[in-house]
């Protein structure tokens, strides 16, 4: 069983754009001084991972990533930031 990808397949193009968007969001987390922005960027990483899982035909995993990565982890980080400090020194 081999998986082949044709050149110019629209799926490949969408997946490539998504991966670069995900990379950009992941790198931008590092540069934010406002931790709330960093949390939103990290939830964007999870959101693009959800799209990627869906493109790779794994809707089960996409659902788990959407519920846990986008909603619950972000919520828990927001609660933690509210308890500590919002701005990085």
């Amino acid at each position, binding site marked *: 069983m081999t998986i082949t990808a044709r050149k110019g397949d629209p799926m490949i193009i969408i997946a490539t754009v998504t991966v670069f968007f995900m990379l950009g969001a992941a790198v931008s987390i590092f540069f934010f001084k406002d931790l709330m922005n960093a949390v939103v960027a990290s939830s964007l990483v999870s959101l693009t991972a959800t799209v990627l899982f869906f493109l790779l035909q794994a809707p089960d995993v996409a*659902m788990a990533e959407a519920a846990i990565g986008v909603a619950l982890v972000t919520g828990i980080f927001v609660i933690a930031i509210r308890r500590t400090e919002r701005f990085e020194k």
Partner: protein
Amino acid sequence: MRDILSFRGFVALFLLGIIVAGISSAVGQIPFGQPDSEVGQLYLENGLQDTGAPNLVTSVVAGYRALDTLGEVVVLFVAATGLSAVLATSKRRVERELEDASLVLKTGCRIFFPLILLFGAYLFIHGHLTPGGGFQGGAVIGSAFLLVYLGCSGRRVSADAAGAIESLSGFGFVFLGLLGLLVGGSYFLSNFLPKGDLYELISAGIFPLIYILIGLKVGSEFAGIVDSMIEESK
């Protein structure tokens, strides 16, 4: 940025480079798309006949690898228990004035909370037919409670009820497994109920029961985690 340019930053980057090179050279040797093991192919070919569940992921998670799923549920249970134990012992509570949620958030919370609960329940009840399952449905239910805590201030989950649902569903999962051992014969968590018709809601034996129990357990665990974190942060 200043941290990167220091000596420690260079050492960290160097070590990171070694790790990246090692992982990429190791992963590069694995032939992509050509699995060594034949067990996946076996599941793909026989899953539908063996279990009667159209969703193949379910037939692996709740059927072939049900024991691993029990382990996963136990891991989540231990994590939730540890979190609440750690948070319960720290007595340093800061009373803080919370600003009220806006009208949009309040109204949205009131409208969306039952819908999200319904969607989560749908996910785990139909787990053997459509994508989704106990963990996904439970996580969706947990996020619904997160919305309530953020939007409708003052409403709380009863910790006793969440604990009771969690314990009962965990007990039910193990009980189903032992019943399978008793009635079905050969192994723990064997599928002893009739498979029924394909694509029917009540089909695939004990899979819907297992997924409902897992969904309730995971949902109440996540609700409890959110509850203890919010309570601590007030």
